């Protein structure tokens, strides 16, 4: 009991630091992670065993793949082409960028997509002499929507995918349909919200249309090779159950092949600059902290009380999980939230017993955490990254600015998800 309270105290203190960002969140997670060992809550062996290396190496592999893809100029090509395809008309750019962001993010992850596409949208808005803020906000929403559609799109899904037996295809079958509806309805919302008010002069539009997109692909050979590896990787993900390979093995294989072929002379640069070690160590710290809650039985207690409230009835339980995850993910970063929720859902499985009844619970968790991340400025990593980039360029996006738009789209997406879970699984 004492150890459980101690673990809870470390957990609460760490999460407080992560939420408030009083210190770097990676540092907070690592301090918390090793504090539980120092305090004797769990021993080092147990804490290290709790680190999900499948997630860690999956992330590293994807970062390697993306590093080489960036090198080819593919992303710049997509963004500039999109803007030109929209004929430089702001509303069209916004709608097309929304779709492009959602698609890229579904396959390469929301945070990366935002880091690559937001600077380009700042440039485009600057050339058109209009405020980039609505563009940045809607792209963040799109990245979290798109990320929700696949196992590899959003950090919460990566964590869920690794903790469960669900394959890449299971995620697509269960999560892509509602996300398509959400993206479609969001485009309607954007049209309603922004169809008026964005005026652009012909001169400024002409500047944009003057962009020379022929030079954007820097290395055609490498691009074709990288695309081939990317498709092979996605195919391997889809055939995971047949191949018997875990996601980390597949993404590392793709990443290492691309690194060896495309960037072998720059290995050091890739390892030091293109791999986001902050995120990697943040995840490692989180796994260790959450393990202390599992080992001391705290998660057990919470799971028990959830069953008490819902009576173990799966339909009610999944609705509670969906909305609880949605609301919590909006208030705190959804990664630490989902890290704590996963062991709880696992425990619920023991109470509920029938494994087939567990499916909607996991999908509710995935949809709730990914979509809830759009609720406020701090809901998901992509939001924080995007606002950071905008702020550094003199376009401040306040908590209120973001939440006003974010909450509306989140509510829309949560209602769609509720209906989806309700009618598909029950």
């Amino acid at each position, binding site marked *: 009991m004492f150890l459980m309270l101690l673990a809870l105290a470390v957990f609460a203190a760490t999460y407080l630091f992560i939420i408030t960002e009083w210190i770097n969140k990676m540092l907070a997670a690592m301090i918390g992670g090793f504090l539980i060992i120092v305090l004797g809550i769990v021993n080092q062996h147990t804490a290290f065993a709790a680190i999900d290396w499948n997630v860690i190496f999956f992330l590293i592999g994807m970062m390697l793949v993306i590093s080489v893809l960036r090198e080819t100029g593919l992303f710049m090509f997509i963004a500039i082409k999109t803007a030109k395809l929209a004929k430089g008309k702001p509303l069209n750019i916004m709608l097309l960028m929304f779709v492009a962001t959602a698609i890229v993010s579904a396959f390469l992850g929301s945070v990366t997509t935002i880091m*690559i596409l937001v600077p380009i949208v700042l440039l485009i808005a600057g050339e058109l002499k209009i405020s980039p803020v609505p563009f940045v906000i809607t792209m963040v929403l799109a990245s979290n929507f798109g990320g929700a559609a696949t196992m590899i799109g959003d950090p919460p899904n990566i964590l869920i995918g690794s903790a469960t037996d669900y394959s890449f295809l299971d995620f697509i079958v269960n999560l892509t349909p509602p996300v398509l509806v959400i993206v479609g309805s969001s485009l309607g919302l954007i049209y309603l919200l922004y169809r008026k008010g964005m005026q652009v002069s012909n001169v400024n539009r002409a500047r944009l249309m003057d962009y020379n997109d022929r030079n954007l692909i*820097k290395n055609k050979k490498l691009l074709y090779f990288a695309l081939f590896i990317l498709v092979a990787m996605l195919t391997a993900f889809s055939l995971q159950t047949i191949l018997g390979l875990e996601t980390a093995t597949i993404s590392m294989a793709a990443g290492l092949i691309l690194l060896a072929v495309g960037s072998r002379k720059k290995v050091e640069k890739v390892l030091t600059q293109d791999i986001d070690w902050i995120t990697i160590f943040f995840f490692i710290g989180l796994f260790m902290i959450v393990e202390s809650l599992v080992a001391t039985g705290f998660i057990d207690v919470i799971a028990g009380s959830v069953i008490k409230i819902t009576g173990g009835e799966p339909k009610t339980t999944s609705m509670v999980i969906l909305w609880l995850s949605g609301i919590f993910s909006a208030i705190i970063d959804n990664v630490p939230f989902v890290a704590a929720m996963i062991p709880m859902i696992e425990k619920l499985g023991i109470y509920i017993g029938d494994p087939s009844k567990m499916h909607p619970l996991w999908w509710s968790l995935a949809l709730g955490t990914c979509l809830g991340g759009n609720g406020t400025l701090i809901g998901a990593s992509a939001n924080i990254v995007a606002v950071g980039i905008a702020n550094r360029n003199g376009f401040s996006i306040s908590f209120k600015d973001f939440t006003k738009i974010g909450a509306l789209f989140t509510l829309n997406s949560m209602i769609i998800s509720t209906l989806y879970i309700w009618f598909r699984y029950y």
Partner: protein
Amino acid sequence: MQMASFLDARDVLIEHKILSKEQVYQTLVERICRHHQLPICGDKLIELIRKRDEEASTAYPTGIAIPHIRMEGYQDTVVAMAFLQNPIDFDGVKVSWVVLIITDKSSSKIYLNIVAALLKISKSPEQLALLMSAVDGHAVIHHLKSLNIEVKKDLTIADIMITNPISITPDKLLKDLGALMSDKGISIVPVTDSQGKFLGEVNLLNFLKVGVPDYIMMLDNLNFLSSFEPLESLFERQDEVKVSEIMEKDIDTITPDASVIEAVFEMIQHKKRHLSVVEKGKLVGVVTAMDIFTQIVRA
């Protein structure tokens, strides 16, 4: 090492007559060749000195001229000097003290330190007057000893830095900075407050970056852009942006008593070609890679 140790009393010339530059060289060479075994002597040596003179003036504004010959096959350092009651003209500088230094081909450290010590004397009117009052070589050596003129073993940054460096205060506008940079032909300027306290540095790239927003730096490539408005409008922003907004504050500096190797290390380590020399928080000089190159490597 005592400065006096490098000097033979017989190699000191105290001259009251009016002599030409040539005559001074001739007398010094005669004396030095009489007392030392030199591989090259006589007219050949005078010719070398004359050539050295043509390359660049050996005179310093303090009234001292220090011709220097690096001699193949000579393993020592020898100094001869002439004190002239009637100063002679060295390319417009009135020189009353000519010091001829002959060293071996490779080592420049002792030579540079002797020059540093000589220059220090020439900057002090009292010390210079004392030496000028000497009646013969023995008196000169005696005075050098009594003044305790040391030839330092190792060169420090203070010996090679540019003193009274150009600096700018943080409240100045970009256009002032731009004018300063183009007038003086410098690309890095130390920033100090009005009391000379070192605050940081500002360089040409900081200046240009005003026209390049952060998001541009995050793009993977820029080859689709042929022009970019913010960079073109940099000219207009020159009147708004202050030096304080673009200067770099966390700058590695060096102290005047640091060794030359320390400066070279800093430069290579941090890929900098310019170091601000700071003593007790105040900017006292700057040293550039080119200074080290010309004054040490090529000296």
